[in-house]
């Protein structure tokens, strides 16, 4: 048997398997069990401890390039808040498309809660440049940075914003972030104003964020798709009524994404094992031949 | 208005390190210029460059040189220009075709001058033609698309990926591998080194990239500067070791001096 041929798999076979391994789980979820970890559990518990009198600030600090990881986090947090009747203030600080992401998420989630009234239960203030300066100013007054909401309604005409004036009226800041903006929420807003901060970030930037978690500047962290899928799992366990939304076909969420991740990782690892298995056989044959020649 | 005319947070450790560093580098440049022989060990990736160009000559295919995705204000790009000068000298001597696509327009201006000069110096100005060095686009992924397309169509025998690379590193290196080219990479981007190390035949890592141009030139002053840099490094290694020993005895001076407030 020609072992060398066995190890030279056409790379297009690898590509095809990866493509299928990504597509099939998205269209037809497998539903690997998701175990949850403390950073996510703490995040969830904090939101769970809030109610109708509290307001959460959700900041969209990511853009389209990291949407597959970050969208599910934003959606799960919004659903969680709306299910509990928590008031939500939405802003976007990421210059490259943060405002689009926020708009799309609200467009998707709000219709699922027909009782919500814009301006009373939630507001969308839009995008503001200069993340750190903006964060500081919001500590003084939201109206200083956002004179009106995304549609141009002045803040004093929005019932919710007459009660939520600055961070003092915010029970929790949630930042869904792709790079440094999430860090600033921790080391600037949490440090200077004492407002609790929880962050969802991409897998690539997660290691950096653990330092803030350790130092207590963040009370919770969702790291990449894995973190997002954990949050979704906690949400479904606590509110089984949300389950149909998450198992519906034709809708993307982190659990489906995580299925795809798991399948793709498994494909890559199996290929590595296969390659090394054949390589081992080749080596053994070469050694045997070398012995015979002696 | 600040209280002092100097910035106290910067005039501690950073200034001391800068002065020590400049002292060693200038000292060894001087020694080298006075004729002192300075030993620098062989660096595998650098030694392989001539071999790669030689192979392209045998196969009659081109050499592709990518000066990275960084701009000219990135020091890695300047290091890449120094290597390019050498590679262009080789392609001129071996009369093999060279292709240098660019992402940054200022780098493009500099690479064209560098290649032209290398051909003049090699005594083969007639082999230089301006289309060798051309501009593609400023976008990272559009640039990668064009370059990967170039690779599969021209099938270069040797590919140099030297400079600042970001996510596009693997797109290019993997495509280059698939067309069977010898690939020599060099970057100081810590996040991209793993991909080059896994896919390319030789990789100049971090420091080796910056030393490559000086090493290749063989000029005494250049070699002297590497020596000076090495001595600073030795000093830092010593500093770390002493610092750790002091830490064991609960003395934090060394650590605190190098901690920026």
């Amino acid at each position, binding site marked *: 048997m020609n072992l060398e041929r066995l190890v030279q798999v056409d790379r297009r076979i690898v590509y095809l398997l990866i493509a299928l391994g990504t597509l099939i789980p998205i269209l037809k979820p497998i539903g690997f069990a998701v175990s949850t970890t403390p950073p996510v559990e703490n995040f969830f518990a904090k939101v769970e401890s809030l109610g109708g009198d509290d307001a959460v600030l959700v900041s969209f600090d990511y853009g389209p390039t990291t949407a597959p990881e970050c969208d599910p986090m934003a959606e799960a947090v919004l659903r969680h808040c709306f299910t509990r009747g928590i008031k939500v203030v939405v802003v976007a600080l990421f210059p490259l498309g943060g405002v689009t992401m926020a708009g799309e998420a609200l467009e998707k989630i709000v219709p699922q809660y027909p009782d919500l009234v814009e301006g009373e239960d939630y507001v969308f203030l839009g995008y503001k440049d200069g993340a750190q300066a903006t964060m500081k100013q919001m500590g003084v007054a939201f109206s200083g940075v956002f004179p009106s909401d995304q549609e141009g309604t002045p803040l004093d005409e929005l019932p919710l914003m007459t009660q939520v004036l600055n961070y003092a009226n915010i029970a929790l800041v949630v930042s869904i972030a792709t790079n440094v903006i999430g860090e600033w929420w921790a080391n600037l807003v949490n440090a200077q104003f004492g407002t609790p901060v929880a962050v969802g970030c991409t*897998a690539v930037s997660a290691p950096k964020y653990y330092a803030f978690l350790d130092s207590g500047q963040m009370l919770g962290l969702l790291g990449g798709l894995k973190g997002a899928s954990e949050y979704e799992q906690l949400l479904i366990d606590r509110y089984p009524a949300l389950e149909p939304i998450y198992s519906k076909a034709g809708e993307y969420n982190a659990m489906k994404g995580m299925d795809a991740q798991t399948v793709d990782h498994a494909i890559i690892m199996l290929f590595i094992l296969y390659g090394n298995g054949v390589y081992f056989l080749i080596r053994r044959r070469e050694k045997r031949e070398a012995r015979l020649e002696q | 208005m600040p209280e002092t005319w100097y910035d106290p947070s910067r005039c501690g450790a950073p200034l001391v390190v800068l002065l020590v560093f400049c002292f060693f580098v200038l000292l060894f440049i001087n020694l080298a210029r006075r004729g002192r022989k300075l030993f620098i060990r062989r660096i595998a990736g650098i030694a392989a460059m001539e071999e790669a160009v030689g192979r392209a000559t045998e196969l009659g295919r081109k050499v592709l040189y990518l000066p990275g995705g960084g701009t000219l204000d990135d*020091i890695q790009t300047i290091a890449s220009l120094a290597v390019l000068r050498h590679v262009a000298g080789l392609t001129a001597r071996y009369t093999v075709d060279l292709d240098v696509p660019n992402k940054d327009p200022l780098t493009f201006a500099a690479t064209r001058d560098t290649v032209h000069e290398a051909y003049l110096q090699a005594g083969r100005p007639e082999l230089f033609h301006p289309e060798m060095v051309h501009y593609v686009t400023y976008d990272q992924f559009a640039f990668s698309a064009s370059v990967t397309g170039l690779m599969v169509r021209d099938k270069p025998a040797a590919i140099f990926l030297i400079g600042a690379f970001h996510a596009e590193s693997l797109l290019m290196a993997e495509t280059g591998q698939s067309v069977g080219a010898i690939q020599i990479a060099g970057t100081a981007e810590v996040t991209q080194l793993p991909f080059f190390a896994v896919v390319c035949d030789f990789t100049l890592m971090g420091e080796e990239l910056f030393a490559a141009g000086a090493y290749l030139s063989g000029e005494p002053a250049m070699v002297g500067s590497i020596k000076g840099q090495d001595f600073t490094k030795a000093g830092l290694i010593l500093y770390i070791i002493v610092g750790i020993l002091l830490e064991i005895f609960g003395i934090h001076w060394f650590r605190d001096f190098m901690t920026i407030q």
Partner: protein
Amino acid sequence: MSELLGVWLGAFLTLCIFSFLYKDNPFFRFAESLFAGVSLGYYIGIVSTNTLVPNMIRPLTADFSGNAHLLIPLLLGLNLYTRYIPRIAWMARLSLAVYIAYYVGIFMVQKLQGEVVPQVGKTILHPIGGNFTPVDNLIMMVGVLSVLIYFYFSIEHKRAVGVVSRVGIWFLMLGFGAAFGYTVMGRISLLIGRMNYLFIDVVQITSQYL
């Protein structure tokens, strides 16, 4: 309607790019060349809107004498084009020299202050201790020092130095392998994003118009 057209256009171009995985073909070549052109045009728009107009043209037209200092970059910028006039082509070098020299100077101090000093400081630890195991700090020091010695150019990798630099290589390999494995997840997320676009977004937007 423009949204529908746009989404299908985007989907078509995505498939053109993906076709490269099978092999090079005219569809990929079309997408690739279009991409090169459009992206360059995109940066023309970005540079003129975000840089040239607000930082130079608008200040100069609004208050010329107050912003006359902006003539310095204007001249340095125009000077780049002397390269097209052979007799004074050398002048273009001056702009490059100024540009490079400024950044090189910045780099020199930034690298020493922002990277060397803090990274050295963080390595000076009590050997016993760490967030994960009690020997984390020790491993950290051995790793940093051996990698530094691996890069040491003045001595051959022989005897003791050879052994230490070998340990340095092991650390490098461990780091590279881990970083590679760690990145896989992020890259697959990108593909998930594209699959969503092709098979979920396109379908949903199309169904809105049907």
